[in-house]
Each structure stands twice: as C-alpha cells, then as structure tokens.
C-alpha cells in the first residue's frame, strides 16, 4: 500500500498542506498500538472493519472490551458492508485555523451502519450541505497524513454491492 509514501510526501510540505480536502495532517491519528488499529489496518486495504463480540456477534462500541449482550470478552474485528444511513448531521461552520484547511463549512455525520455500529465521520469530499437524517450513505475513505479515515459519500455514485454474499460480518483478512 502507498500510505507510507504519502505520509512522507505530505510531511515534507508541512502541516498546513496535505492530501485531505478538510484537515491538516497534524490531526492524523497515531495508529501504531492504538485501540482502533484494526480499523485503520482495514481502512488501509479499503475495507471497513469494525468490532463484534466473537461469541454472539453483537456489534460493539469501538473501545468496548466486554460484550454487554453475553459477557464475552473476545473481540472480533470484521469487515462489514460499507453502507449506512444518517442518524444525525451538522454543518461545522467554525474552522480552527491551522487545523481545518477547507474554506467553507463542512459536514459531520453520525452514521448508523448496516452492521449495527454507529460511526461519526465527515464526507469524502467537500459538500455544500449535510444530508438529512435517514438518508443513505456509502462509506469510503479519506487520506489524512497517510492514514485512511472512514468517510461518507451521500449520493452513492459508486456501484452498489450487488451480491448478497455478505461483505457484512465476514472476517477481515489478517
């Protein structure tokens, strides 16, 4: 994958420029050893990977250690279908100098994923307005300082997944 290369490139040009349409590279998560590293590892392969209870398959919060359904403590990070609907959405008008590169208000969405998780994200590209609650979104990725971050495409221009073979809840590749 090319994430490492783009990191080098963007850091040479300083924190105020970067590969992302929205934020400065300085906001890139530190992924090595992070509790969310499986999510970032999946994202680097273009896959949305989220935690489930290994015993009962309940979708878990990103940092959840014990399943509230069955009490199991084995977490399985699994690739899920990159689709969801909007739970809540806002347009962020305040743009912190040095952190936000965009020159206009940007969307922040709380998305209910088909997998049963909820994930906060912005959009893959600049948008003039936020989608409405209940609107469908497709999940793709932004590159922020070499780290791929889940993001939403409100209008789903990409081909939809046509097989029912279930990208959802298949084990993510190691």
């Amino acid at each position: 994958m090319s994430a490492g290369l783009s990191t080098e490139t963007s850091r040479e040009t300083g924190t105020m420029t970067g590969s992302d349409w929205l934020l400065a590279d300085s906001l890139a998560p530190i992924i090595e050893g992070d509790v969310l590293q499986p999510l970032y590892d999946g994202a680097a392969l273009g896959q949305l990977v989220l935690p489930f209870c290994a015993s009962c398959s309940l979708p878990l919060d990103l940092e959840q250690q014990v399943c509230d359904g069955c009490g199991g403590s084995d977490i399985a990070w699994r690739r899920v279908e990159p689709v969801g609907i909007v739970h809540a959405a806002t347009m962020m008008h305040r743009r912190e100098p040095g952190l936000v590169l965009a020159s206009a208000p940007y969307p922040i969405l709380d998305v209910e994923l088909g997998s049963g998780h909820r994930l906060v994200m912005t959009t893959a590209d600049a948008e003039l307005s936020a989608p409405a609650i209940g609107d469908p979104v497709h999940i793709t990725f932004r590159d922020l300082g070499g780290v791929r971050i889940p993001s939403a495409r409100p209008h789903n221009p990409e081909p939809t997944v046509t097989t029912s073979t279930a990208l959802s809840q298949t084990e993510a590749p190691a």
Partner: protein
Amino acid sequence: MTASDRVDLVGLGMTAMSTTPGAAPQELAREAVDLALADAAITRADVDGLLVGSSQGIRPDRLGVAFAAQGGFGDLRLLEHVEIKGATTIAMIQRAALAIAAGEARTVVCVFADAPLVAGRGAGSTYAHSGGQSGTRGLERASGVLGSVPTYALLAQRWMHVSGARPEDLAAIVTTQRAWAVDNPAAVARTPLSADDYLASPLISTPLRRLDCARPVNGSVAVILSNDVAIGHPARLAVRGTGRSHPVRHRRAGAESWFGGGRRAVDDALEHAGMSRSDLDLAELYDPFSVVTLMLLEEYDLTGGAKAGTFVRAGETGPRGRLPTNTGGGQLSGFYLQGMTPLAEAMVQLRAEGGDRQVPGASVALVGGIGGRLDHHAALVLERAA
C-alpha cells in the same frame, strides 16, 4: 459543636468570573475558599473535610488533592478529588453529606476551579486543539469533530428530529436566560438580547450558534457543608435529596444513545426529599448548550407534560413563570463553571439574595448536573429551612 441530623450548605464563595486569562486554578480556588469561609464565619481550623473538583484535560496544573497543602488546610479526615465530569459538583455534595451523616467529618469544603482561558488563544481554539490523536476521540477529531460543539450539534439535530423541537425553541432558551442574566452581577453577558440579535449570532455547528454555547471563564466556587448549627450563614439551606443516573449506553444503529437517561436521578432526589415536582420553586440545570436545557426540561418531566419549546416560549421558565429556570443566566449567559454554576445560583436564590432577579418566596430548588454526552445525570433538592 452542636450537631444536627440535617446537613446544611452553610457557606458560599465565588470569585469574579473572568473571560480573560489570569490566575491559575489553585489561586482561584484559594480565593473562593477564603470567601466561603468568611461567608460561613469560620476559619480553616473549623474544616475537617475537603473535596476538590476540576475539569479534565485542558491544562496540566488542574486542581487536585494537593490543594489541601497549597490552600493552607490543617489535618483532614476527608480529602478526595471527585471526578464524574459535569456531575462532579453534585457528587461532591452527596459525598460530603454522606460523610457528615456518617460522622466521618463535620464541616466539609467543596471547591471547583477552572482556568481554561490561557494567553494567546481563544477558548474555542483551546478546546479545538485538545483531545489527542488516539482512540475513538482521535478518530472523531480526524473527522473534523473539533471541540465539543459539533457533538452537541449532532445531539441537537437528533433531538429536534425525535422531539419536534425547532430552532426558535433554542432562541427562546437563549433570550430567556439572557433576560435573567441582565440582573445577575456575576454573569458575563448582561446585554439584553432579542430574537433578532440571536439570529445574528454566527453559526458554530448547525443548529448551534455562538450564543447557544456556554461561556467558559476562569473562576472558582467553593461551598461549605456542615451539621453544626452553631456555624454558617444565617439562611440555612438543607440538602433534602440527591439522585444519580448513569445510563450505560452503546452507540448502535436503530437506537438513541443520548436521550432517555436522567429522569431517574430527579425522581430519586425528590423521593429522598419527600417532595414532588410541584414543590419545586425553581430549577437550575446544567446547560453547556441551549439544546441541553430544552431537552432536560422534557427528559426530567419538568413541564407538566408540555413540549419544552412551548413551555419556554410561553415564558414559563422566565420571571413569574411556572418554573423559573437558570435564573442567573445559566452557563450560556452567566458563566460556565460546570456544576458550580447551577448550585451557586440555587444558593443565591434560596438565600433571597437574588436582587432584581430574585424569585419571590423561593424555598425549594432543583439543581441538575450532566456529564459526558449525557452519560451522567445528577440531581439535588435544596430547601431553605424555615
């Protein structure tokens, strides 16, 4: 000393609430404690318990248990740093009251100090730069969720979606609280505010405008609890009831994760007090954003079944309303000192020291606290002793 079965709030000390950088939290706390001791007409030698509270994360030199030595206290029987986010103040009151009732301490100082305003940077910028690059918060910040406003903006959008509340309801909260603040000398925003003024306020994160957000200050409030009837301010305020609710929720599709969690805290506090909602003369709620007050009025069942927006727009939370609410301007127009903001205003009102904003005959107050993303609720019922 002359002990009573009742635990009273016997002292209150408030620093000036500064919107510019200045003293460190420890200096502010020392000043508030001095004022509270003077208010109760006692000295540090009368104090055998100290509880401290401080906000998380913004600065490394936050107030802690070292304040016992820094603040000049003698040997103590109770000393703790209490931390449950915005529910901390009420948790301190509960802790102090239980310790006093159990005989573990007699006279307890509870102090909260915060100084988020630092030189060279606005408050919004300070919050935008805090939060780190790890875990869920790191992922959110990498998605543009900077500071706490956008999260509460999402909550506001969702609340309007599920409850039918409208932007004009937020405006009514803000203008009503400003009207209270006009007559509060401790408030940081006292200029009368019209609905048009509200609409001219810049959007921070839809639907929240700058005026929908709390005003961070550098300041401190200290209160003193005791069961010694021989000491304290002449207006005795009894701790009648407390309640807490910590709904443990998960963020899942098809479910709400912010709403439906706090009513138990209010129910328990009222039951503990042997009172009902109709006994409340005023409510002082924790209101970091306008939408929180709007939402809590319904979540806590304080409107007699009316929609909160209807209730507020009818003036019921204002002067001469059915439930005067956030009568010092709250955290929006008064000052954002977390849980001390509603507690201090309740004490001022119950002591009948509210001046031009005094609620006539106020004798029972509900004080609220929320923490996190409405993950923690705390309620306190205070009564002015006859």
